[in-house]
């Protein structure tokens, strides 16, 4: 388990960009934490760390999944907020993306907890102050 304290969105992006360097493809990153915790910000940092233009990153609330290419690994950014059933999850294509060798970043992963594969990396955001957050990274193949 790794724990980080971020005092600003810029710092959250930096933490994510550093973390992105450890990714090899095939990882599932399950974000936990409510609204305004910096999940999209963290994803922007992931993109930057993978060599993807971070300006491409936007919230996938309406698309369900955004695909960012052009980096070292493809990054798929899901929003599971509206996913209420296994059938709904199936029709996002989530299970298909698991085999493609890229990185999956899941916002509102709490909604699909029962479908997360073995080896999922959990990234938990907690609010410390207006701008400061604690970010805990745990799980993964090594557990």
């Amino acid at each position: 388990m790794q724990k980080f304290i971020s005092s600003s969105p810029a710092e959250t992006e930096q933490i994510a960009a550093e973390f992105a360097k450890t990714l090899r493809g095939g990882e599932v990153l399950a974000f936990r934490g409510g609204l305004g915790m910096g999940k999209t910000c963290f994803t922007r940092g992931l993109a930057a760390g993978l060599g993807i233009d971070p300006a491409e990153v936007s919230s996938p609330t309406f698309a369900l999944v955004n695909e960012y290419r052009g980096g070292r690994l493809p990054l798929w950014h899901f929003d599971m907020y509206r996913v209420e059933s296994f059938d709904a999850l199936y029709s996002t294509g989530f299970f298909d993306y698991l085999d493609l060798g890229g990185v999956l970043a899941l916002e509102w992963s709490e909604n699909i907890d029962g479908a997360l594969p073995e080896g999922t990396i959990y990234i938990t955001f907690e609010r410390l102050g207006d701008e400061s957050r604690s970010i805990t990274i745990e799980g993964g193949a090594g557990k």
Partner: protein
Amino acid sequence: MKIFVLDTSSKAASAAVWEDGHLLADCWQNTGRTHSVTSLPMAENLLADCSRTLEEMDALAVTAGPGSFTGLRIGMAMIKGMGFALGKPCIPLSTLEGLAWNLRGWPGLICPVMDARVGQVYTALFRWENGKMHRLMDDCAIAADELREHLAEYGAEPKILVGDGAMLCYNKFEGQLENLSMAPDHLLHQRAGAMAELAASLLAEGKTVSAGELAPVYLRLPQAERELKLRQQKGE
């Protein structure tokens, strides 16, 4: 009688041309799920290599499900498009029945099994008898343990698992079922070439639909098996 057969339902992609009672040509690859990129050139090259055209086909066959959500939609879109443009009848195939045809002639129970994730499998059960494939169980999505219970009812009859869930089930069931085996690697995945004879028999029976009627068959995953949402901790 000429049939073009396509499968993009799962990890592998394949295409085949069937002509007058025989497999004329086929192509298969298992190089990652990029069917949207590979399938059209595969179909085009296969037809060109055997000097055939889609226009001369009597029907177009495609695996309609179960399978990967994206994969099924790619196959459907291709065959619907071709069928609509050329006015060809379409033959929807059960992916599981198609898998069973990999083992056409095998003496015993043929059990196609595909990994549906979250502990579930898409499965069915067949027996090859007197030169025909007999279905013993409808296509369904069930927990792997439930499949083991179904197979146990057949006692010592030889059983063979085929499909991308075969290894998962073989490892789970080993030692708990009598005479259980697994299809060899080259017969493990869906193959359009193996399904072509099934497509031909369906065409002979008139089991075709128009391109407009062709639709994917998604099997619903049972909902009660496990919770999808993270349960709130006590006190929250």
